[in-house]
């Protein structure tokens, strides 16, 4: 990990309140693993006070570029949306434990809900390099939440979509698509990132089918490096509260409670 000031290279508006930010740091992209995150502190102001964590959306190890896909939800992301090329921000990373990438010449199912899609692109790109077949299932509230799905086209064999309002893909929750996909595709591993209820359902289905499953958690953090001990989740097999920043953000599904 390193603490660096980086200049914004590019910012693209994907949809209403959704952006992809391009930053450049050859040293970060060189070591970054799919599922890891960075924190961003925009300026020296005290409100917002703390840096915010963002998963790494994709890296280009040749150019040193890496992408952050984010949605405007709070003070920091609102200010981030105003960033322009050349603006300087402070980045700490890469942080945390990424996805397990042992799978080779096999089949992986990736399930994203809302902005939970963000780390799955990097994951899909890494899995593809290991000659895996990848199926995606992405759910969102409406079609606005599915405006970035083209980024998965190169790495994935099939992309299944669901929206709660039925404006794109199947109407309903993405988890409703899963029994059929699992039957047809027979994945050897499942990865998921998104709202807790969605991940809890994925965990349940994966357990039923005895498929290993990894979940990527998100929570409030202060330091991002395991010092403040603030970003806990609940373990299923230990008295200790795991820290999302260092023990995660990626966990094996059976290791953590997902009931909020």
């Amino acid at each position, binding site marked *: *990990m*390193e*603490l660096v000031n980086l200049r914004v290279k590019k910012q693209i508006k994907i949809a209403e309140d959704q952006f992809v930010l391009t930053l450049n740091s050859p040293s970060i992209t060189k070591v970054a693993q799919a599922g890891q995150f960075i924190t961003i*502190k925009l300026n*020296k102001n*005290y*409100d*917002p*006070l*703390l*840096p915010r964590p963002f998963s790494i959306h994709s890296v280009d190890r040749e150019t040193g570029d890496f992408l952050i896909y984010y949605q405007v939800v709070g003070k920091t992301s609102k200010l981030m949306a105003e960033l322009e090329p050349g603006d300087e921000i*402070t980045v*700490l990373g890469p942080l945390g434990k990424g996805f397990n990438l042992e799978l080779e010449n096999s089949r992986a199912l990736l399930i994203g809900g809302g902005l939970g899609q963000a780390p799955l692109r990097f994951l899909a790109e890494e899995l593809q390099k290991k000659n895996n077949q990848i199926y995606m299932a992405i759910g969102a509230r409406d079609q606005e939440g599915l405006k970035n799905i083209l980024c998965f086209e190169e790495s994935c064999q099939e992309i299944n979509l669901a929206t709660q309002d039925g404006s794109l893909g199947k109407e309903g929750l993405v988890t409703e698509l899963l029994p059929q996909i699992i039957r047809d595709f027979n994945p050897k591993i499942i990865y998921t990132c998104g709202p807790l209820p969605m991940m809890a359902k994925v965990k349940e289905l994966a357990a039923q089918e005895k498929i290993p499953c990894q979940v990527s958690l998100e929570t*409030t*953090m*202060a*330091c991002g*490096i*395991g*010092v*403040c*001990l*603030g*970003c*806990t989740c*609940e373990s299923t097999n230990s*008295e*200790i*509260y795991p820290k999302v920043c260092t023990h995660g953000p990626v966990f094996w599904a059976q290791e953590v409670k997902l009931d909020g």
Partner: protein
Amino acid sequence: MGKVNLAVDIQGLRLDNPVLTASGTYGFGLEYSQIVEVCKLGAIVTKGLTLEPRKGNPGKRIFETPAGLLNSIGLENPGVESFIKDYLPQVKDLGPKIIANISGNTIEDYIELAERLGNQAGIAALEVNISCPNVKAGGMAFGISPQMAAQVTKAVRKSTTLPVLVKLSPNVTDITEIALAVEEAGADGVSLINTLLGMAIDINSQKPVLGNIVGGFSGPAVKPVALRAVWQVAQKVKIPVIGMGGISTWQDAVEFILAGATAIEVGTANFYNPQAPLEILAGIGNYCQERGVTAITDLIGLAWKER
């Protein structure tokens, strides 16, 4: 213009400079040593240590407010034995003096912690936490009564030859009363302030945000309260005062020194600017140089001392 002498002496605890990192905001220094030149710090104050390992509080532990941070970590730590065995060998090689912050449920706990840590190479002083707002037993209970605070201090004082600092709670009617009581009981210094008791409520769930309901409030928002406490205490006690509470910049640090602090601790600022302690160190050096101050100790309490 010669070099400014930044060294300070807290009753035998000699520090190369007065910039310390506060307990609970720096772990044992190992994580930040990967991105910060921690060897330049005056000292590192460890995460609060207890006799037994503590798993900390359940539920949500941190919440940001405008210019502030609420936490209810609940003294999660590996316990003193694991600290000595698994961490101290690396920690003592980081460079700065290591001050062990200790916390107990009973006076006996504090005595045992002081004895256990007192004979460890690499521990330069103890900071006795009698002000943690996030644990049920002990913690702040010792820090809100002058008699109890004095008892703990006296017991620790007798149990170790190390310099003993006592960390005071701001959640009292008159902090100078507690400060005088621990001075009388043999403390070598007082550090203040610990966090202010606070809370937040989620208007969607209509429940408290923190799992522990209340938590300790820190960050830039508390600085004026902390500065006032240092100002008051420094004028009452003869022992050195270590000031903290929202210090984020060298200007903040200079204010605390002018208010009477011999040294300062940087806490929450580490989270939003890991370079803050070193920026503060450089800044106070420049400040002294520009004003022709040759020793940082000449600045202590200048805001109230008659000149």
